[in-house]
């Protein structure tokens, strides 16, 4: 499968220098307060207007915890061809529904899109994941939740390009860190937000980690999550910490539409529970 050149690489030149008279052109629209607080970051926000993509096993469409899933897609393989098609099957495992439910609980008014990249067999799952992520990056979602990773080095370079491409296109990729001693991707790339778990039970408590590669720790222990059949399960794993950060990103983005991923990471840092954001 050919991965097409990313749009960010096709932008017209000149783009990499700043002439004297152009400084005004890049004036930032946001007035940053002297001290960034959680109230400034997401006070009153609901996720309204923010498009969040859950790249996972699908999302159950009628789950009471998840509510409306605005769009559902599935990445399918047909011989050598990989296609992204509208999907009506929902979730094949329950995991995507769990992630969507967590995001929805934090950002109730965000627009949710499910892209199913899991469930079509282990063999070939790598190219399907890459195709799904490439498609999602092209759709310019505000936030993409990836509670998964690959250990295959052959996919690392393309994943890295896609992660950078997302970053430059103002799409925040939020990815689960691996809590096993193995090398895996894309969470290790600095253009994504990587998330591990803490042991507290508050959904808005999250910590900045000053010793990367894991950047933030969020709630991931014994989380009650949506699962198949309209039910809930109590689950543990970085998979569930990740959508907490994705949901918080959606809240911040709904209040501050103009933020780039760089700025969004800054806001996240400034109001982390161990920085300036103890519960206000």
């Amino acid at each position, binding site marked *: 499968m050919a991965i097409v050149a990313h749009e960010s690489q096709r932008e017209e030149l000149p783009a990499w220098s700043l002439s004297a008279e152009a400084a005004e052109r890049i004036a930032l629209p946001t007035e940053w307060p002297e001290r960034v607080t959680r109230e400034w970051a997401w006070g009153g926000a609901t996720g309204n207007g923010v498009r969040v993509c859950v790249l996972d096993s699908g999302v159950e469409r009628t789950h009471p915890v998840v509510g409306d899933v605005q769009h559902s897609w599935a990445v399918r393989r047909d011989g050598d061809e990989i296609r992204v098609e509208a999907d009506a099957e929902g979730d094949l495992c329950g995991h995507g529904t769990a992630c969507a439910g967590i995001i929805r609980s934090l950002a109730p008014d965000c627009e949710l899109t499910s892209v199913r990249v899991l469930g079509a067999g282990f063999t070939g799952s790598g190219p399907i994941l890459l195709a799904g992520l490439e498609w999602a990056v092209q759709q310019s979602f505000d936030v993409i939740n990836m509670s998964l990773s690959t250990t295959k080095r052959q996919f690392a370079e393309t994943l890295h390009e896609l992660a950078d491409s997302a970053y430059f296109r103002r799409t925040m990729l939020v990815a689960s860190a691996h809590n096993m001693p193995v090398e895996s991707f894309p969470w290790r790339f600095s253009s994504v937000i990587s998330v591990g778990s803490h042991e507290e039970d508050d959904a808005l408590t999250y910590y900045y980690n000053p010793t990367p590669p894991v950047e933030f720790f969020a709630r991931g222990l014994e989380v009650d999550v949506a699962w198949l*059949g309209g039910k809930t399960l109590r689950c543990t794993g970085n*998979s569930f910490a990740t959508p907490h950060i994705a949901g918080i990103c959606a809240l911040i983005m709904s209040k501050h539409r103009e933020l780039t991923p760089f700025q969004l990471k800054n806001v996240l840092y400034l109001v982390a529970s161990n920085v300036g954001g103890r519960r206000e």
Partner: protein
Amino acid sequence: MSDELRAAVAAGVLGAEESFRTLLQSVVETARAIFGAKASSVFLLDEEADELVFEAVAGEGSGTLIGKRFPSSTGIAGWVLVTRQPLVIDDLGEDPRFSREAAESTGYVPRGLMAVPLLADERALGVLEVLDRPRDSRFTLAEMDLLGVFANQAAVALDLLLRARRAQAALGGEGDAGALARIASRLETADEAERAAGLRLLAALEDLL
């Protein structure tokens, strides 16, 4: 053929599969003991069939599940394999779809499970599951880390088993490598005199080549 020959040498002799199977069984028994769980299983990914196969089971289901197969990317084990992310579920609830899946894959319906991928280098070899740890204590992330560390050991055992199987395939195969591997195997079990004579012949052969 050289890879297979190397595998044959690495695995030593015929019968190695039996030893590694015992090691794998010890892994699931130990996993069950560490977590005080009701059962524990190791699934091997059969890449050709794209299925997960029960390779070792301790506790509930140990008599009936070995060799049983299911699709590689559905259900909890499949999700863990494909995403390479460990997952712990408590309070499975009463979701009939989940119960059926669990019953089919374990022989009974667990209340909770821990599942972790078995990774060797960049390969995903299978999944380790621990079913029904005691529910009197809150789960901790330290247990999650322990599960991950333990899974690495299980992955090594599974990798050895796979090498032994490749070795056996080479031993059973026709052609030069198969013949050499069979000779190596015979030498291991030969009495001292035969062995010494065999080694002299091999040394002469090596000189000749």
